[in-house]
């Protein structure tokens, strides 16, 4: 019993339970949107569910889409936990993906070597880009929120330039993209004919590892305290500078790894906008915030967001509800999950009951 409480399963149960009713409310609002366009509410939601988890294939598709979101969300969680509001996941993913593609293309050797080289390059690129923002903060006191946002644009244009010109595939269709990787460097698929690749396992492992790291290691403890009260941490002998740089570095490296797996696991090359147009980074930030920066929670929230997105494709394929309405449904779900309606509802009712008057 005690051991169970120590791990805090209660907290997880609560973290899961609270959004539950919120989802119901979000579904209700979405239903109104569907109803206004004359769609069948039940069918639409059924298709949404089928699109996300309706068959083994779609479940794996959802998990495939969740993979980069999970990894980036873990990176964001780590930075948030250390008290640094890193909004730069996008840029870090972009540079990670580009570097991984280059490494996989140009590093000689067998598949394993290429994959390892790509992972290292991707993590380094993402990590260093994040580190730059961290360094600008520690060295020049530049606001991290602003710099990480700005660095996203710089990364985006820099990568865009690289694949539009110097690194553009020879011949080809004219898309701004690198050459296709040698198939040896592709991440193995988990199931034949499905999109889910080994990166997902790494992401799950990373989530468990990060949760363990934060709760059970000395460095994780220091990071948490630094984020909670930096003066307290300094007082207790935690060194802010190095710890900040390390956590920013790891945070960026995780985002970089997210980009790497997009290249090695799904696209097999770097394509301009492959990170920005699916909006991975913002999904990751949302997942993190929804879960209060808890790694396991962030991973689950990432899967939820990915499911909403693949579910929307199911609606698109099989109903007359326009694609735009799917995004309305998705956002209303997110809005209500974020509000944790149940929680505040209960709290207020209790307060009212106790006081006999409205707070």
């Amino acid at each position, binding site marked *: 019993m005690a051991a169970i409480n120590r791990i805090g399963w209660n907290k997880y149960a609560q973290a899961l339970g609270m959004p539950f009713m919120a989802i119901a409310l979000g579904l209700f609002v979405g239903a109104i949107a569907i109803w206004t366009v004359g769609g069948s509410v039940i069918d639409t939601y059924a298709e949404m569910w089928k699109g996300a988890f309706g068959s083994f*294939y*779609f479940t794996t*598709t959802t998990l495939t*889409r969740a993979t980069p979101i999970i990894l980036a969300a873990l990176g964001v969680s780590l930075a948030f936990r250390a008290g640094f509001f890193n909004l730069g996941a996008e840029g870090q993913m972009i540079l990670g993906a580009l570097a991984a593609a280059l490494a996989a293309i140009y590093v000689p050797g067998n598949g394993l070597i290429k994959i390892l080289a790509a992972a290292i390059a991707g993590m380094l690129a993402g990590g260093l880009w994040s580190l730059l923002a961290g360094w600008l903060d520690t060295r020049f006191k530049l606001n991290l929120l602003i710099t990480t946002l700005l660095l996203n644009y710089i990364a985006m244009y820099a990568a*865009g330039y690289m694949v*539009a010109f110097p690194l*553009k595939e*020879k*011949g*080809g*269709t*004219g*898309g*701004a*993209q690198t050459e*296709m990787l040698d198939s040896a460097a592709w991440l193995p698929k988990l199931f034949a*004919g499905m*999109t889910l690749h080994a990166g997902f396992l790494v992401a799950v492992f990373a989530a468990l590892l990060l949760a363990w790291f934060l709760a059970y290691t000395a460095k994780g403890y220091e990071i948490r305290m630094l984020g909670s009260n930096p003066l307290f941490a300094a007082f207790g002998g935690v060194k802010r500078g190095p710890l900040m740089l390390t956590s920013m570095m790891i945070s960026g490296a995780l985002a970089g790894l997210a980009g790497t797996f997009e290249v090695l696991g*799904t*696209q*097999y*090359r770097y*394509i*301009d906008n*492959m990170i920005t*147009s*699916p*909006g991975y980074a913002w999904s990751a930030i949302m997942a993190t915030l929804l879960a209060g920066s808890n790694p396991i929670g962030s991973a689950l929230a990432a899967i939820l967001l990915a499911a909403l*997105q*693949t579910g*929307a*494709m199911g609606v*698109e*394929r099989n*109903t*007359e*509800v*326009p*694609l735009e309405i*799917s*995004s309305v449904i998705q956002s209303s779900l997110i809005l209500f999950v974020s509000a944790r309606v149940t929680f505040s509802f209960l709290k207020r009712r209790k307060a009212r009951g106790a006081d006999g008057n409205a707070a």
Partner: protein
Amino acid sequence: GNANNNAGNAGNAGNAAEGANGAANSGEAKKRVVLVTPEKIGVNQFFTQMVEGLDKAAAEFNLETKVIESADPTQVEQNLRAAVAEKYDLIITAAFSAADALKKVATENPDQPFAIIDTVVDAPNVRSIEFREHEAAYLLGAAAGLSTKTGTVGAVVAMDVPLLGKYTSGFDQGLKSVKPDAKFLVNFVGSFTDPAKAKELALLQQSQGADFVAGMSAVGDSGVFEAAKEKGFYTAGQDTDRTGEDPEHVVLSQLKETDTVTYETAKDFAAGNFTYGSISYGLKENGVGITFVTAESSSPLSPFVGQENVDKLKKIRDDIVSGAVTVKNPLAP
């Protein structure tokens, strides 16, 4: 206003066709054709025209059709696979961003016919349709060179990506072929959906002496048109004939017949003479062109261009078709 594109699923052409023809052909199963776009159709003329072409084919050849929009390119693969699972008879997709996914899915499903528009996928069960936009751009550039009074013309381009090089490079070649000392200004918007910025750039080019500014910025073109109207210079649109919007200032349009191509693809399939391999549409095949020269327009011809120039342009067109003039494709290796 714009034409009602009736895109997406909102008006399902397949069902409509079924309603009209269902009774007549009740015995025979209809062929089912699906178009999977690699991104939201949204503002993209290229895709809306394909939907139009498909709708037309559906009505004429008694097809059941369906359009599936992908929210972003990473979703194409799942949509293609779903389409295979749904047992559509023909799956059409488009653009280079769908190429990798199609290659994968087509290889895994060798008995399923596919078609892809605007890029080439090398697989035995895929028909690829390409456009030689640079030829049309060449004509447009030549038209600009023949018409300009100031010797300076410009283009407002959506993004600096290789694909759009087909447009700018073709234009430049055409321009220089008729007026070697002409000045060609190029500015990039950085987005496909930013008419305000496009307008700003058009105004900038006008202030730098351009009397003709070609819009190559997708939806941004509307901003270019507004600038032309305000400052009284001349401009041209893309993909469809847009001269009707403001014949006085929008004097030309560079055409890309994605609707025709989609229609032809569906038609071939319905008629049973569908072939695989790569087909290229250029001036010769009338897959691309410019208004007044390769296609009629309901708008009056602007005096800025003039019939004399149109005649010269027709000659240039013939030279390109005959091979007397070759337009270099900047994407060719």
